[in-house]
Structures are given as C-alpha cells and as structure tokens.
C-alpha cells in the first residue's frame, strides 16, 4: 500500500547550516500491517510521517501509494491523494475550535465529495464506537483531551482511508485514554488499512507487525 524509497529531508538551522533529518529512508507497509517508528524526540519521526503523508515535500526520494508515485504529483493532485488515501491522527488533535465534535468529524468528508446523510450516519456510528456520541454537539474546548483524540480518530477514519498515519497519538493522553486510542488504531490495521504510528511510548509497539527506530536519519530494525 505504502512505499517510500530513499527519502531525504533537511532543515536549515538558524545559523544557516543544513540539518539532515532523513538520510535515505526506505519503508514499505502492506495493507493490514501496523508499523511503529520509535526514536528520541527530535529524531525526525514527525518529519518522516509528514513526508509519507504528503504534508510536506522531501528533498529527495519517492513516495508511492499503491502503484502511484504520489511524491511527484502537483499540489492539486497531492490534495486529492491525501483526501482519498490518508487519514491523519496528530498528537495535539488539531480539531477546529469553531466546529462541534460532529462537524469536525464530518470535515473529512467535505473535501472529498462524500458529505451526505450516509456519511453523517457513519460519523455518528464511529463516535458511538469510541464513546463520544453523546458529545457530538460539544465544541473542542468543552471536551477532555481523551475525548478530543477520539473525535480526531473518527475524523481520520471517516472516509475509510487505506493508509492511517498517527503522530504520537497518545502523547497528550493519560494511560487509560491512550489505551483506547491504541486499540482503535490496531482495529484499523485489522480491518485492512496500512498503519504507521510514530511514538516514543513502548506500549504503542504492542501488536505491531514491524517496529523501527529512527536514528541519524535512517530506519533501523531493533
């Protein structure tokens, strides 16, 4: 489902010196596979996920979704590819504060032309599955961190994307809520999605098909 070949990415330090974050990363994730990437803070885990999800361009290398070399696409096509293939889960939830929980979930359908009564029903079903259906009319500031991440999870999977990318999804949660989210993520993999989770928490690796460590810009198998 997801294939990355030779990904390279550098940033500029305030002094102007280049800092190489990804130095030729290769990664392949099959449908139904859960891959966990660990590594210390600042090692480039989030950058790897951003490049894999087309949220930013790498300096070199290619990303493939199925048979399509999506890293070579233009801006519009990349937007369509993100909407059609990828669901994102972020550490800081990134819910829109001006929308209710349900509206936040439905936002995922708005840009891929799937808005409608059936999508609304599916959104409510998903919210019921993770226990936030009764919070559908609440705004993000009115929700706890755990509830916000559950809503964010529903948004990430509403379109049933074949690829789920989760960036420290339990980083802002207590153990109980973290366990709920990790269980939901594993459920997506069991349902056939390719899943990549970056996390520094060991429990994230439970049930993973493959665990990598990102060090010096390269992925290592432990």
């Amino acid at each position, binding site marked *: 489902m997801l294939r990355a070949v030779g990904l390279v990415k550098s940033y500029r330090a305030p002094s102007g010196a280049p800092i190489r974050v990804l130095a030729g990363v290769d990664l392949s994730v099959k449908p139904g596979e859960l891959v966990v990437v660990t590594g210390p803070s600042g090692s480039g885990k989030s950058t790897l996920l*951003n490049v894999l*999800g087309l*949220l*930013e*361009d790498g300096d070199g290398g290619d990303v493939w979704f199925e048979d399509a070399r999506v890293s070579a696409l233009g*801006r*519009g096509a990349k*937007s*369509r590819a*993100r*909407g*059609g293939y*990828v669901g*994102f889960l*972020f550490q*800081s939830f*990134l819910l*829109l*504060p*001006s929308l209710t929980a349900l509206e936040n979930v439905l*936002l*995922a359908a*708005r*840009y*891929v032309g799937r808005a409608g009564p059936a999508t609304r029903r599916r959104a409510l079903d998903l919210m019921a599955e993770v226990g936030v259906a009764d919070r559908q009319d609440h705004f993000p500031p009115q929700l706890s961190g755990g509830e916000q991440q559950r809503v964010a999870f529903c*948004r990430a999977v509403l379109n049933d994307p074949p690829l789920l990318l989760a960036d420290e999804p339990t980083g802002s949660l207590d153990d109980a809520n973290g366990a709920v989210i990790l269980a939901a993520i594993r459920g997506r993999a069991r349902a056939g999605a390719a899943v990549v989770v970056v996390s520094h928490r060991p429990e994230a690796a439970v049930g993973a098909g493959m665990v990598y460590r990102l060090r010096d810009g390269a992925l290592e198998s432990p």
Partner: protein
Amino acid sequence: MLRGYLFTVLGIAIGVAGLVALGAMSERIVRFIEGGDRFVLGQISVAGRGMGMGTGFTAGGLLPASAIRAIAAVPGVAGVQPQVMLPLNPSTSQFMTLTQELVLGFDLSVPMPNRHYRSLPVRAGRFLLEGDRRVAVLGAAFAASRGLGVGSRLTLEGESYEVVGVLDRMLTAPDRFVMVPIADARAQWVAKDALLRTVLASGAMALTAADLNTGAAVGWRDGEDPDAVALRIRERVPAVNVQLPSELSQLLQSSTAFFSALLAGIGVLAFVIGGLSLANTVAAAVFERIRDFGVKRALGASDLQLGREVLGEALAVTLVGGVAGIALALALGWVIDGYVAGSNQQLFHFSPRLLGGALAFSVLLGTAAAAYATARVVSVSPAEAIRRSS
C-alpha cells in the same frame, strides 16, 4: 457560518463606521457647497449699489422700485422678484457668512425666478402665499434649534408671527432662514435700521414701501445666456450691483476652497483609515487561522476549495461587519447631530450613495484582503501551517 468571527466582525464594523462617519462629514460639506452653487447658478442676483446693511449674497444698497422696473424691461429678462434679506441678529451682520440666520422677504406677486428653486420643499404646513401677513416659513435647522413647528408663534422685531410652514432640511443656507412676506420684511428692516428710519422721517428722499428692497432675484428667458443677460442689466440699468451667475459661482467656489480641500482630505483619510483597518482585520483573521488551513489541507482540501470557502466567509463577514459599521456610524451621527442641533448645526449627511459605496467598498476590500491572505497561507505546506500555530 459566522461562528467564531465576532471580533472580526467588530473590527470590520469599527473600520467601516470610521469610513462612513468621515465620509458623512465630507458629504455634508459637499451638499452645502453644491446647494449654494446650484442656487447662485439658478438666478441673476441684483442689489442696489452701495454698502447698505451688508446683507445677503450681494452685499448691496437699496434697490428701488424704479430699478426693479428698469431691470424687468431689459431684453432677455423673464421675471424680477424683489427681496429683502436681513440678518436676524444685526450684531452679526458685519460680514457675509454662509451660516448666519437670515430673514428673507419675498414679493409673492412674482413667481420665483430661480430656475433651480421654483419652489422650496415644504416638510410641514405650506409655503407663503400672496396676501399673507405676519406669517413665517422656517428653515429646518432654524425650526429645530428653537423647537418650532407649524402653528407655533415667533416674535420678530416685537411682532408676533405664526409659523405656517417648515422646510425640508436642505443642508444649505435656507436651513437657517426665516421666510416672510416682503411687506413684513420691510417693516422689520425699518425697525432694525435707525438710519433708514431717520431718512424716511426726514422726507429727504421720496421713498415708498416698494422701494425698500435689498435686492432682487432675476430670471432669464429660455435660450438666453444668463451671463449675457446679467451683463445687459449691468449696461442698461444704472446704480445696481449685478452678479453674473458664473462669477458668483466662481466666487462661492473660491470662498469654499478651504472646505473643498478639507473634504478631499477627509475623504482620503476615510479611505485610508477605514480601508486599512478593514483590510488588516480581515487579513489577520485569515492569518490567525493558518492551523485550520493546514488541517483542512491535510484532509484533502485543494487551494481552490479553500479559496472558495474563505472568500465566501469573507464576503459574509464583511457584509455583516459593513452593515454593523453603517449602523454604528448612523447611531454616532444621530447622537452627535442631536447634540449640536441646539447650535443650529448638522455635521453628518448619510447619503444613499455614501452608504452603498461604503458597503461595496468594504466587501470588495475585505474580499481582496482575504484572497491575498489566503494565497499567502496556502503557499506554505500543510505541515508548516500546522507547525506555525503550535
């Protein structure tokens, strides 16, 4: 759709209110100057030669009945209406001012010769009729400043007058006029002017009531050039001051040049201050949502979809903010004009062209600012947009 935009709407409303309020002050001055210009271009103003009481536009002396007849006989003249124009308060009559309160007496046996003011717009009651005595029609500001209306009584030079009409607000000189039949105005003139009383009592001059005119409004026949008719009067009638309409218009323009420059400055200020405030508010509202844009792009939104969404929101927000700003400016103008009405002033004129223009300007500028800000925001990657907000 407008949820979360309260402060943006307030910011826009304040910008638009500033724009409209300054624009309304500018409109007020424009209407004043335009009204005066329209008046002087609608008639030839004639006065007797001399310094006289320094009243009215012509600042002349006595214009006797013989001169009126001589003017009426000049080829091209369509009608001559004798008039008496007096300062309500003689102590302020030393200079011709555009804002002083005047008593204006009309000879109603002659139709109004002014081509642009065949009749004056009456808001309540009626205008003067031939044969009226001891009645008055008041300018709107004059009536408002004294709380007078139709049926009220007004004392002028010790005589009581019944108010039979109040004019519409014209935003120019007649707003401060008291209009009376010419016979009453002549009586007031005699009562005000000790020198005139002495002359009349001495019998040194053979004056009748019909000779007591401070000036006359002269009309011209269709197809005649008013300046040419005025020059003809100047040539053929001795001892009169004749103002060419174009000369008087030019004089008015030059005497109001300061106001014209002032209103141009106010207009520019209104556009710059109001426009910058509005554009800044809208652009800031878009920039501060950079994280939302990043999230939406992560969810698959294209630049076009985001652009459409933002422009739609900007349109709605600037429309609501614009309407709120106009309401705010109207309220501000109403309060301030209410406060200065006691001193016979009006500072604001909210014309439909100003309100419509301000709304269109705010919507266009707000949309342009939103488009610019959106283009800037979508030029960064979704990841960068999300990072910048954290």
